[in-house]
Every structure is written in C-alpha cells, then in structure tokens.
C-alpha cells in the first residue's frame, strides 16, 4: 500500500491506504476521527466538511492522494472542551442547533469563512454556508452564532 503524508490538525500523519479512498473513509474508518459526519457521500450536504489549506471541502468527495503534503483540519482540531474555538462557544451561547448532525461540517465552513473574512455580513455568512444542509431549521441561529464569534474574535 502506498503511504500518504499530510498534516492532520497540526500533527504529522502517515497513512498507508489506497490513495483513491475518500478522506472521510480514512478519517472515520482508519483513524477513528468521527467528528466529520457521513451524510450523502456525494459532496452535496457538507456534513463531512473539513478545512484543507484555507478552504472547507467535503471529505467524502476528496481522495486521499489529493491531500498529500497539505494541512487538514477537522472539527476535532478546531477546539477542545478546555479551549473551545470562539465559533464553538458561540454555537453553545446561541444554542445554534437542534439535532447537531450537520454542525461539525457547518463549523468548518464557518471557520474557513472567518479565516478569509474576519467581519462578514449576515449575507456573506449565509453564502459561505450555502453548500451545507441543515434539516432541523437552525439556520438563523447558526448565522447569529457565526456573527457573534466574528465579533468576539475581533474584540480579541
């Protein structure tokens, strides 16, 4: 089996696997990192979004070979209970979910947005999250939470 090397949540990672397998398979199945969720397997719902470089992408639609040498961040790398990311804190404050299955992917899309635009408008947040589906109808709370996190980050 070929070996693929990349940075996963800041850590040097070496995976021996068929390089055509999806990154989501590798994360969930081989590494046991279950934050990114399987929703459709076709890159249509965003539940498995991770950040590669600066962009949020669906891990189900990303072959392993394509992340060689790159930085991959999953929800597990965004923050911890001790040091949550401002987005995670804001999602708790705003109670910005119902079932929460989509939320790990949504947080990654939002984190990627805040990296390139630290003070987005509500419209820009909605655009950035437009490829993420939420079935419970928590959209407005999530948008509020992202705006809150941006403010908090700006205030330092």
């Amino acid at each position, binding site marked *: 089996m070929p070996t693929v090397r990349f940075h996963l949540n800041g850590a040097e990672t070496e995976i021996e696997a068929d390089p055509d397998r999806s990154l989501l398979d590798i994360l969930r199945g081989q590494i046991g990192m279950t934050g990114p969720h399987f929703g459709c397997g*076709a890159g249509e719902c965003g539940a498995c979004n991770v950040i590669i470089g600066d962009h949020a992408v669906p891990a189900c639609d990303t072959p392993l070979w394509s992340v060689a040498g790159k930085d991959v961040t999953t929800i597990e790398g965004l923050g911890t209970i001790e040091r949550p990311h401002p987005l995670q804190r804001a999602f708790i404050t705003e109670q910005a979910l119902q079932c929460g299955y989509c939320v790990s992917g949504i947080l990654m899309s939002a984190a990627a947005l805040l990296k390139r635009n630290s003070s987005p408008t509500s419209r820009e947040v909605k655009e950035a999250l437009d490829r993420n589906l939420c079935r*419970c109808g928590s959209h407005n709370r999530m948008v509020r939470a992202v705006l809150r996190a941006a403010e908090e980050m700006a205030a330092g």
Partner: protein
Amino acid sequence: MNQQAPDPSPPKLPVSLAANPRLSSWLKFSSDGQVAVSPGKVEIGQGIVTALAQIAADELDIDLSRVQMVRASTTASPNEGVTSGSLSIQQSGRALRHACAEVRRIFLQQAAERLGVGVDALDVEDGTISGPGNVRTSYWELADDVSLDRDATPGVTPKAVTSRTLAGHSVQRVDIPDKVLGRPRFIHDQALPGMLHGRVLRPEDARARLLELREDGARAVAGLVAIVRDGSFTGVVSETEPGAELAVQALRKGATWSDGDLLPDEGDLPSFLKSQPAESTIIDKKTATSPGAAARTIRRQYTRPYIAHASIAPSCAMAQWEGDRIHVWTHSQGVYLLRADLALVLKLPVENITVEHMEGAGCYGHNAADDVALDAVLLAKAAGGRPVRVQWSRQGEMSDAPFGAAMAIEIEADLDAQGEIVGWRHAIWSNGHAARPGRAAQPALLAGFELANPFPRMISTNPPQANGGGGDRNSIPLYDFPSWQIESHRLTTMPIRTSALRTLGAQGNVFAIESFIDELAAERGEDPVAFRLRHLRDERAKDVIRAAATRARWKPEKQPGIGHGIGFARYKNTGAYCAAIAEIESAEEISVRKLTLAVDVGETINPDGVINQIEGGAIQATSWVLKERVRFDHRRITSTNWTEYPILRFSEVPDVEVEIIQRPDIDPVGAGEAAHGPVTAAIANAVFDALGVRVRHLPVTRDSIIAAMELTS
C-alpha cells in the same frame, strides 16, 4: 335546593406514571451526589432531554448539573411508547414531575425520622435537607437507606408554579457541547469491540423481487465475511466499511430482479388518490339548530405531495447476537415498539431482545431508523457473535424509508345571501399516516416484507381523532361555523410506502382550511385577520392571532412584488396554538423573507427550547412549501439525492421571529409540530396577496404558480 355535591373524582397518576408506577424505574440516587433520571422518551434533536432534566431538578430542588439523563433502553427504562406527536412534555414531563415530587417527600420523611424533626420544618437546597437547630442531611447521605422500589401513589402535589426556579427559564441544552466539539455522540460514531460492517442491497424498482443472485463478484472483495440472503432480502457483512460498500456494489451487479410494482402518476396525484379503494369515515358532524339557507356553494381542491423525511444522516443501527439473544442499538423513536416488531420477525420472546437508544440525526417521524435495525439484526446472524453496524445509503434513505402521505383535500362552503358561511364540508383522500412498528400483530419493518416467508406489507392507518387523528388531523375547523361535515377516505392500497411524518395530516388540512378561509375573506373584502377573529370563540386562539398580527404590524402597506399572509391552527385541536404571518417576495421564484409567529404552549418549560422548535418547524415548513416533493416515475422513486430532492438552503431561509404567550398555570404541551400548518398557509396566502393567484397544490413553485394562473384565466 338540596343537591348533593358530586364526589370529587379520585386523584389519578399521570398516564406514563400509571403505566410505569415503579419509582425506581424513573429515578436513582447515588451517594456521590448524582441523580440518574430515566425517561422513556428519547432525544431526537428536539431538546427533550434537557426540558425533562429541568423538570426533575426543579421538583427535587437540586442543581441541574446533578441530573444524569439515562438513554432509553428496554432493560430498565419506563415504557413510554413512542417519542412522537409533540407529547413528550405532556406525558414524560408530567410523570417525572409527579414522581420527583413523591420521591422528594419520601426523602423528607426519612430525613425527619433521622433528624428527629417534623417533615414540614425541613427544607431542601441542592439536595441538602436542613431543619431547625442547624440539623442537616442530604439525598446523597440517605440514598442507600431510601428504597424507591415502590409504586407511585396518586394525590401528590407538585410544587406551585411560582416556586419553580428552573422550569420557565431558558437553560442550555445538555447535549450541545458534545455536538459542537465533534465528540462521538451519535450512533453513527460508535465503534463496538470487534465490530463488522454491513450493507443491504435493495431493488431500484418499487418492490421488485430478487430472482437470481451471483455472489462471485462480492466474494472477491477483500474483507468479506458473509453474504446474507433470505428471499429478496440480501446484504453483505465485511471487516471494514469500505469493504462492505465495495461488496454491495459487486452484489448489485450480480442481482437479477423481477419487474417492480406500477407506481401512480406523480403529475396527477388527486386523480390517483380519489380513484383508489378506500375506507371512508365521518370524522365529525355538526348540525345547526336553525340552518341558514345556502344561496351558493363554493368548492376548492387542495393537494400536497409525498414528502420525504430526508434526515441529514442516513439511518444506522448496530446489532449483536449472543446465542438466541440479540442486543440492538438504534435511533428509533420507540425502543419497546421496535422490540415488539423484532420479536415478531425473529419469532423470539421479547425477553431475548434488548433494544437500546442512541441519538441519530434529527428525526421528524417514522423514518428508516426501525428498518435499519432489523437489517442489522438479520445481517448480524452471519457474524458469529460479532456486532454488525449497518448504515443506509443516501439513496436508500430517500427512496426506501416511509414518506409523509400525499393528500387531496376538497372543501365546500355554503354561503347565505349575505355571504356568511352556513355550511362547511371537508373531505380528505390520503393513505393512512401511521404504520409504526410495535402496534399490530404484524411487523412494520421493511426487511420483514422481503423475506422468503414474507410478512404482508403493512397498509398505513390513521390514529383515532381522540389521539389527534392521522390524515384527518386538524381537519375539524376551530372556526365557529354553524354546521359541518368532515370525512376521511383512507386508501386501502399503498403503492408508495407512507407513515408518520411531522404533523401527519395537519399540514395539508391547515393549508386547505386556512387558504379557503382567506379566499372567503377576500371575496367579502374583509381583512383576513379580522375575518378569522370574527369566527373564533377561543380566546387563546384569538390571542396568538392578535399577537402575531401586532408584531408583524398587520397589515403592512402594499408594495409591488411583496405579499403578506396569515395562517393559524391549534395543533391537533388540543395542543399548541400557533399563528404565523409570512412576508414573501415574488421574483423569478417565490422567496419567503420573513415569518412572524406567536405561540401558546401553556406552561413553557424551556422558552428558548420552544422558540428553537417553532423556529425550526417554521423553516422546515418553508422548505416543504417551496421545494419539496418526492419524485417518481411509474417504476421507481427518482428523487434519491439532494439534487433531485432539494431542501431550503441558508441563502433562502427567512428571518423568523417567535413570540411566546406564557401561560404558567396551564399544563404544558409540545411545540415541535405547531408551526408547519400555519406557516404553509401563511406563505400560500402571501402569494395570493402579492400576485392575486391562489396556489392550491403544493409545493408553491414557479410552475405551480403558472399552472394556477392558467386555471384562473
């Protein structure tokens, strides 16, 4: 007059507590300062577990952090049937409040004995019991001495509303931190030791039978453990998940299927629904004492399509056999009901089956959660005692799970010479809205219909009106018309599988009633809010309408391309009151810009939880109205992915404002299904306000508006 006062009726236990009276099945205290609370209801994304924890903490006088909520399981949990129908607060909440009040009293009696003071002199603060002279003990100290292995007794008085400190306040949901940190909380994220992975192969054509199966392709896939086949049920078990995927793809290539059943014409659902054999029932009849003379009669027909649950996660389950005993992990809405159906299929006593709940993605009714549990059980038979995890595909989730039933609704109103409503007839043609597991002598699980010795396919039925009804839910008007007749025609054939989806028939019926009311008001030149208020007697109903109207500044000035509409209902006619006002914009497509809602659920346990449910319901309903429709040709379901079955996206979501009318003295009811009907009607009525066109067939799309315009011209 010397009339004897009637005996006051003896106090009764809340329903769920009467069915599960043993106090220890609800509550367990431990000496380390924790209380385990075991409701029979389950978390399906609605925040119920937090609201129940609030009730328990409040009644016991302990901090919320001391409450450990236990997941429902058939090993120990009270049997509370199914988590559905917006009944969890009513059923589980009342039972828990009563049980906690009684347990608190039992502890106080024990403390009084130990401390040598009267019960009435004792106080509880965060579980510490104290009395005069600074004597003190606690639940935790007494935990080992107090036995809760006794039955609840009627007549316990829970705390007065005013002394509740948690209920009525928004608290943060207990499950949210895990979910935003990406911790493994969902069933999908669990890994049992030695776990294998299964996948099931199902035909694309509706109900096709498996004629022949070549296994060589699947056998060649690395990691394959077993191929299972029983009649038309077939699947694979593999060491790995990708292995299971590859093997089931190979198995698909080796499968030969019979022709499937013919599906109806999706483009003409009313003709299909009205031509099928049906069981007809008069749901309600009201006869005027002095009937007014009908000068004319207006008749309208409304339809709603089949709607998919379309959860973000495909359904998932795990199962493990040990001899003739089976352990199942599931996100089913009813662990005991699923167990009953598994027992029927497996021909095993229920004692041999343990069903344990784990959270899945948002659940809006009877989806594939139960089906996949049986799939896992059948595949695990070939796993030599190892646990097997089965997950459906997106395609399976969108085509094989039950749908919300399509409906055709006809309403006729008799108007007198002054144009007042003197007669009202409402008729519904629809499949039943419930085919849930665990309620019949035959199982309701998909694989059960596919076995070599198959069980008959269950035809959906409707719950009785006393339980809220099914296709007829919310079909009896709340308006004070002098006479009416409500009739339901439940189809006795079912080419497309239907079962309970959020609100059952209420969304369709409220859409029809509230659209028609709006039309009658418009015809008379009357304001739709005033017209509704004039026909309502119930003050709580009027209050939500007035509150929504005030908040939305009804009626905003007319602007080109913008429309406003209202919709109202009391869910099931016995639950939450909700009024919605929609502001829509008509451009290339219809977009909903804003929804303003007012809701009355009686006592509000967690106000933010109620707002979250109403807001979520309103947005989901907007998605149903603007986008959703299960697509099929005469052979198969074709809307099997998010492109073919689009739902509302972030950029399309309206602003939503929710106002709660607090009624702390009135028993609480659920909020999860109150918004769908009112929002649906409000949007349709706003489209009329903007365009002068009545869209009577959902979804409201460019095409349906054009079709409605052609009909009018």
